[in-house]
């Protein structure tokens, strides 16, 4: 049964995320590589019919009888081709700097070192067409003494990337949480990064306003989304 | 259990009513009756029906109904009555109150809701007492004065607002001879008094010591000045045709043909300008609540707000009455009232009931037609509130300075051409006098 295999696959991937360590390539991403030319060729072929008319629906991604399950749940045992192509292009450009964490239909997650994130993000914007950030989420991992900040990038300008969300994750130390800001590459992260600063205490170097945003003006406690902050009475 | 009210007891209720009656009787016997006698003895009473009105006659008139009517007739032709009651303040205030009620119901109907509902008779006239309830509420509310406000101006401005509105009302004739102040420069006087309103708005907004009222006051000033000129120009063409500034003469001079037939553009400009003058939708910029909270009324509270509302609805009446006088022939209309309400040889009581001697069919007819036209214009002024949004300040100024002034001039030239062609004016072919 395919879904069971999925689960296993999924679990393997996800376990990897939680116990993720940089610089250690635990997943064999080499199988997902493919030459950039062939990927683009694929993309053009699959979307050439729809690219001329803006309001037309993007190509159907569902496999199998319609409605039998959600679009995302009908997964092939191996990662889908289009997403594999994008991931392959990233890997081909950056090699060991970028670590592909998972490739699912419409979702790719890559992890990079903080020092490389600006380079990678610029490449994603300029060469791959991911032109805006949907959200910036910070997660606290006290056991590993790290904070992960993940940018969900999407694309409005490229038709074939409309449903794709590329997550680019980076980690920083918990005690002195500092990350370079992406505001010069993605203007849309401005408020999200500001929120991450006040919720998790991650200082974004280069961000013009690392200051209070949503919390009360007289907030005098640790950043509330850190795990050691407890809601009273719970 | 402080929230649970004290138990109601019918005995206490009865006792309180009896106490009130007792107090009223005591006050009546100890204060009011002596005071009446003193006044009747020491104030010289005027002659009525050829004989000098003595306190004795005055008191017997209460018993003899035939003597009541002459006294009433005498009283209602006196200036104080005119100022206070009939063409003056109370009459206008009643129309203003009715306007508020009609506006709420009318808008509610247009917006598919019911409007004021509970104060009134269920099923018959829902919400007719809503205004009284609102008035009571407004009177009983505390008046808050912002810190740092200029107190004398803050207090004086709402009173000046109502007084100015009442002064406009005083110049409006409602029937031949029924006007508080029949001046020869009536129209100019109206515009002169209307010119006070932006000043009051600005003073009040300054005195409030707050930002939103200040912006609102400035907007009111801009708006009223921008619309003052087309306002006056559109009325000027009426003056050209009528050859007079006296409002009564303007009304009577359009006897066969109303001026709106010759001056439709002027009438349109006058109507739009008066909407702007009244700060009504779509020109309610000084009170635009989504932009500047409530404009120059932001800091008003309690009866200050009530007075300003009263004044602005008095203005609604005054300006629609002015429109009727200038363009719709004033009180002219077919005579539909009978010459007498009852037979001439009736018994005294019936004479009183049919108001013989007091009833004048011409005047009643004039008042009737005047009211009909005025109410029609008021309804027309209420209509935009249901269908149009507020316009922006620059569009408003552009409309006032560029479009309306030009339009007013256009019709003025038409009026002049008509006069020089000998069609209208004194001795014109279409004038009967």
């Amino acid at each position, binding site marked *: 049964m395919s879904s069971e295999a999925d689960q296993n696959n999924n679990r393997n991937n996800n376990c990897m995320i939680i116990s993720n360590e940089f610089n250690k390539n635990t997943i064999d991403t080499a199988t997902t590589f493919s030459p950039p030319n062939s990927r683009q060729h694929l993309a053009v072929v699959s979307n050439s019919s729809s690219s001329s008319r803006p309001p037309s629906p993007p190509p159907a*991604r569902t496999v199998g009888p319609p409605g039998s399950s959600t679009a995302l749940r009908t997964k092939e045992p191996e990662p889908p081709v289009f997403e594999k192509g994008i991931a392959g292009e990233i890997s081909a450009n950056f090699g060991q700097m970028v670590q592909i964490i998972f490739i699912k239909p419409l979702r790719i997650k890559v992890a990079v070192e903080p020092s490389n994130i600006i380079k990678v993000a610029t490449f994603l914007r300029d060469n791959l067409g991911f032109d*805006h950030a949907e959200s910036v989420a910070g997660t606290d991992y006290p056991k590993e003494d790290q904070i992960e900040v993940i940018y969900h990038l999407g694309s409005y300008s490229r038709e074939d990337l409309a449903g794709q969300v590329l997550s680019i994750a980076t980690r920083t130390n918990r005690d002195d949480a500092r990350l370079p800001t992406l505001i010069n590459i993605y203007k849309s992260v401005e408020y999200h990064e500001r929120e991450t600063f006040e919720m998790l205490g991650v200082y974004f170097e280069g961000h013009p306003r690392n200051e209070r945003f949503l919390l009360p003006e007289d907030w005098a406690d640790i950043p509330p989304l850190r795990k050691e*902050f407890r*809601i009273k009475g719970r | 259990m402080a929230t649970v009210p004290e138990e109601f007891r019918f005995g206490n209720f009865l006792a309180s009513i009896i106490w009130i009656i007792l107090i009223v009787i005591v006050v009546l016997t100890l204060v009011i009756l002596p005071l009446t006698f003193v006044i009747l003895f020491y104030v010289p009473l005027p002659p009525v029906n050829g004989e000098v009105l003595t306190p004795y006659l005055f008191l017997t008139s209460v018993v003899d109904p035939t003597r009541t009517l002459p006294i009433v007739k005498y009283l209602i032709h006196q200036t104080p009555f005119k100022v206070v009651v009939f063409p003056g303040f109370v009459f206008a205030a009643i129309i203003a109150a009715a306007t508020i009620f009609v506006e709420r119901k009318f*808008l509610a109907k247009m917006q598919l809701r019911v409007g004021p509902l509970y104060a009134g008779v269920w099923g018959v006239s829902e919400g007719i007492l809503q205004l009284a309830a609102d008035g009571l509420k407004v009177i009983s509310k505390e008046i808050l004065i912002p810190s740092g406000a200029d107190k004398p101006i803050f207090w004086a401005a709402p009173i000046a607002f109502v007084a100015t509105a009442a002064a406009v009302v005083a110049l409006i004739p409602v029937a031949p001879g029924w006007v508080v102040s029949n001046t020869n420069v009536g129209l100019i006087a109206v515009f002169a008094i209307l010119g006070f309103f932006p000043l009051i708005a600005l003073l009040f907004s300054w005195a409030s010591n707050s930002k939103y009222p200040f912006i609102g006051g400035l907007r009111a000033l801009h708006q009223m000045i921008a619309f003052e000129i087309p306002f006056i120009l559109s009325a000027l063409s009426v003056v050209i045709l009528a050859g007079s500034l006296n409002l009564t003469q303007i009304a009577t001079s359009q006897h066969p043909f109303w001026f709106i037939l010759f001056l439709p553009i002027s009438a349109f400009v006058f109507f739009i300008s008066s909407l702007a003058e009244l700060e009504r939708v779509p020109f309610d910029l000084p009170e635009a609540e989504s932009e500047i909270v409530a404009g120059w009324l932001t800091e008003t509270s309690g009866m200050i707000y009530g007075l300003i509302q009263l004044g602005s609805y008095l203005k609604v009446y005054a300006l629609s009455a002015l429109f009727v006088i200038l363009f719709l022939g004033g009180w002219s209309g077919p005579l539909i009232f009978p010459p007498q309400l009852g037979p001439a040889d009736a018994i005294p009581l019936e004479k009183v009931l049919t108001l013989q001697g007091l009833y004048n069919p011409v005047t009643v007819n004039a008042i009737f037609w005047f009211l009909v036209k005025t109410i029609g214009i008021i309804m027309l002024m209420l209509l935009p509130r249901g*269908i149009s949004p507020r*316009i922006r300040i620059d569009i408003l100024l552009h409309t006032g300075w560029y479009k309306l002034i030009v339009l007013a001039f256009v019709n003025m030239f038409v009026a002049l051409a008509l006069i020089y062609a000998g069609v209208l004016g004194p001795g014109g072919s279409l004038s009967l006098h």
Partner: protein
Amino acid sequence: MEDLEDRINESQKMGMQIIKESDDDRLMTLSVGPQHPGSGHFRFVVKLDGDYIVHCDPDPGYVHRGEEKMTEYRNFIQNIPHLERPVIHDSTNITYSYSLAVEELTGIEVPRRGQFIRAIASELNRQVYTLYWLAIYGIFLGHSTMFMWPTGDRELFIDLLEALTGARVTHAFNIPGGVRNDVPNGFKDRCLRQISYYEKRLKEYEDIFYNNPLVRQRTEGVGILTKEDAIRLGVTGSVLRASGVPYDIRKAEPYDVYNEIDFKVQYMKTADSFARAYVPFLDMRESCHILRQLLDKMPEAGEVRAKLQANPRGPPGEAYRRVESGRGSLGYYIISDGTPKPYRVKISVGSFRNMLALPHLLVGAKMGDMPVIYWALNYWPVEADR
């Protein structure tokens, strides 16, 4: 389009010039909100030079409730009632993507009829939200009739949702694994009757509001957000579509049954406030179209809800799922560590993303245009604060 660019350049030039020339004494600082009738639970400080806004600083957070922290203390089912609080007028949509994400994490399959009922509730709720938004847009323009009519018509949709879900506003209807209950008897007929009535009403809205010359005068050419800026700022929903980007999550990433539905993404190219006000209206009309199809294609009988264990849990992992809500893309990023409670939930809401366009559009605009621009951004303060 040249005309459009000229206008932008003009307005931006004007804004820049004013900033340069003005010294601080000339500027008046106005605090729009939180007690201002035109702001909601939100404040933005504007600086005025005469009637022009030269500076704008949004200050949200007045209704921040820490929803993301609260989720870490509750299991996946218990999170539903409080997660819909940020935007109770669109409460089906805000729990929709949450349910999708939890289903992806826990591996629950939704029955086909359940998917249809979900989509129907979602479309009905989109109408409810957009009508409410339109009502407020009407009163922001001083158009009191446009406040009352949508509010009244919204009531009819609320009645429909009440019959379907049992609550008027906070439905708590979507649940991981499907929906809480099946549709009541006669729901389809009632729904269809109401849609045809409602389409007549939409025509009236157009007559009195959208085609009203004064409304046009106030909204057209005001607050132009070019396509490039819209993409750069990452705005979403109707704001994005009004700028000429035909992007709709229902098309881009069809969830549940939306890939079987035939509909057009409504978008406009004028990129002004009028377009931003008109695109939701077109969406409502298209939503009627979608509702008809959904009601038509819905299976007659079947399960509506997968059987759940008491505390659904999945393997450790993460999921990011989005739906198209009334305010645009609404995404949930959920990390699960294998326990019944989520490890981290991030809600990516349209309002928060559209807020970035507010200072961008307000600087250089007139104070009188402030409500027109502000509310056309489809900004819901409570949702942005979460």
